[in-house]
């Protein structure tokens, strides 16, 4: 198992390194970094000063070394707009996104697995129809449109929940509900397919021949096997939530990392953009390792 985890960790780490290289060179090769880092209306003197301070006149490789060195020390520089270190700003926003993703994923996991297992047990039954409906909606609906329609209906029209911002539980309802749809539909689909396979498998036949009750057959014999492909998709979806809540956060005025990123882009605050990407990538890196760990726990064929 150590070998498996080590291999996966190394491959994730390689990806992370590629990301760092790519971001650095993209930001250097697409033009003068001062254009990226400084506001559009910065004076020529400020630009020269910026170049001097950040050593932009040094050879590219020296710049890259310094950039990596700074990254290792978690030094992302200062947010130009806010005039404070970028990292705390990003971390605070990331905390919000993380909570949002965690709550959503928790609800999605429980709902998708239960409903998916029940749908697979009676193909064509009522649960199966619900599952098909949601997976279609999840794959077809643009979340920004759902979000604004939800605001019009539930916040403006009915006045049940606030339109945007943060605060008590009522502020979380709409963002979570909108974010819920896509991963729920996708994971439901995978759980269902995987459960149908598992329920049709030979070992479930054995369990039935042993006299195991249906409930135990589904949730003990089939589900654990069926979870293996599900975990992979759950990882992908969780990653998508960590980085892709951009739209929903923007619409609901939720102070997460996605909104921070868009705001920073519109304000040309590149240090913050960069820090946000790094923090998100690191979080996904850690999550991938956890996913692999879960995989190894569930499947003894990986452990031995």
């Amino acid at each position, binding site marked *: 198992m150590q070998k498996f985890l080590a291999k996966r960790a190394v*491959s*994730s780490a*390689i*990806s*992370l390194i*590629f*990301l760092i290289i*790519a*971001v650095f060179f*993209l*930001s250097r090769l*697409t*033009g003068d970094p001062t254009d*990226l880092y400084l506001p559009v209306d910065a004076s020529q003197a400020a630009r020269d000063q910026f170049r001097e301070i950040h050593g932009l006149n040094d050879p590219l490789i020296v710049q890259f070394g310094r950039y990596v060195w700074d990254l290792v020390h978690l030094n992302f520089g200062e947010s130009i707009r806010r005039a404070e270190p970028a990292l705390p700003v990003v971390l605070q926003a990331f905390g919000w996104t993380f909570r949002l993703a965690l709550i959503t994923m928790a609800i999605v996991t429980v709902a998708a697995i239960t409903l998916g297992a029940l749908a697979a047990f009676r*193909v*064509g039954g009522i649960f*199966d129809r619900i599952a*098909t409906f949601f997976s*279609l909606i999840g*794959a*077809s*609906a*643009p*979340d*920004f*449109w759902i979000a*604004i*329609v939800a*605001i*019009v209906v539930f916040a*403006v029209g009915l006045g049940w929940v606030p339109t945007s911002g943060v605060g008590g539980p009522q502020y979380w309802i709409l963002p979570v509900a909108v974010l819920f749809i896509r991963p729920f539909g996708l994971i439901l689909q995978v759980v269902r397919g995987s459960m149908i396979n598992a329920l049709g498998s030979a070992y479930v036949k054995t369990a039935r021949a042993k006299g195991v009750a249906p409930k135990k057959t589904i949730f003990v014999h089939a589900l654990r096997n069926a979870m293996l492909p599900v975990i992979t998709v759950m990882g992908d979806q969780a*990653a998508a939530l*960590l*980085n*892709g809540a*951009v*739209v929903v956060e*923007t619409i609901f005025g939720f102070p997460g990392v996605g909104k921070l*990123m*868009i705001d920073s*882009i*519109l304000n040309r605050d590149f240090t913050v*953009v960069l820090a*946000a*990407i790094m923090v*998100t*990538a690191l979080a*996904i*890196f850690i999550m*991938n390792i956890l996913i692999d760990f879960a995989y190894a726990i569930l499947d003894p064929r990986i452990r031995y």
Partner: protein
Amino acid sequence: MSNTRTPATSVKAETPEPGKARKMLQLLLADKTATIAAIFLIVIIVCAILGPLLLDQLATRQNLRGRNAPPFDLTRSFFWVLGGDQLGRPLLARIIVAAGNTMAVATGAVIASMTIGSALGLVAGYSRGKLGDIVPRIADVIMSFPSLLLAVIVLYMLEPSVSNIVIVLAITRIPVYLRTTRAEVLEVRERMFVQAAIVMGASHLRIIFRHILPVILPTLLTIAALDFAFVMLAESSLSFLGIGIQPPEITWGLMVSQGRPYLTSAWWLSFWPGLVIILTTLSLNLLSNWMRVALDPTQRWRLEIGGKKNG
């Protein structure tokens, strides 16, 4: 292959072709929802091709009297049936014209990512050397990039033109095809009929294009239909956030975004383009579901026995 056939045999060998097309049409008609989806998509495609040519004038001319005109107002012409936008342009005409950009971006991105992704996947799956180990890493790297963020940052640094958006979206979708193709090739390569072809002395090109590709193509097409919907949504999101297609060009996502300030006073500005997005992606998903069954010889009977639920 066709050049290896004699004229006499090519007639015989070719005759099943129109039969195949008819067969597929029958299979399509057997699934009512898929038929409706296909018809809707054909309408959208016609709009995307002809719309910008015929209605461009109508869709861009501002008309202050028609500002936020409500839908279903029968006193105006047909193109005003869905109402007017904030600058008094008929929404229906704009939606039809916007279909052009929306479809162009999605088509471009899907074709590019499918071609590059499956070519890389073929190489990765077929070659037994180092290449087979290295190429999948590309997919890992791209996958570990937060894809929307990648798009955001690239469009931040480059200018958000149609071609750049296509490139960005194509790159983020390459892994899907790369991984699927590779996994399928790895499996098909070991099948006995490929071994049989090797024993006969078939060249690599013949094995890839005659024996492996036809077997995995249905899977790729099914994914492509699904991915088309995904790319459309991604483009819409980018446009909605203001970092995708820039005005005066229009796409459906951009229209939703432009209507947002008027949500409470003129809901139709955002509602109609959003609805078209949903219907299009829904159709693509339904069609993809149908393809998954119709293109798989072992599943096809579900359609042939007619009308039954295929789950």
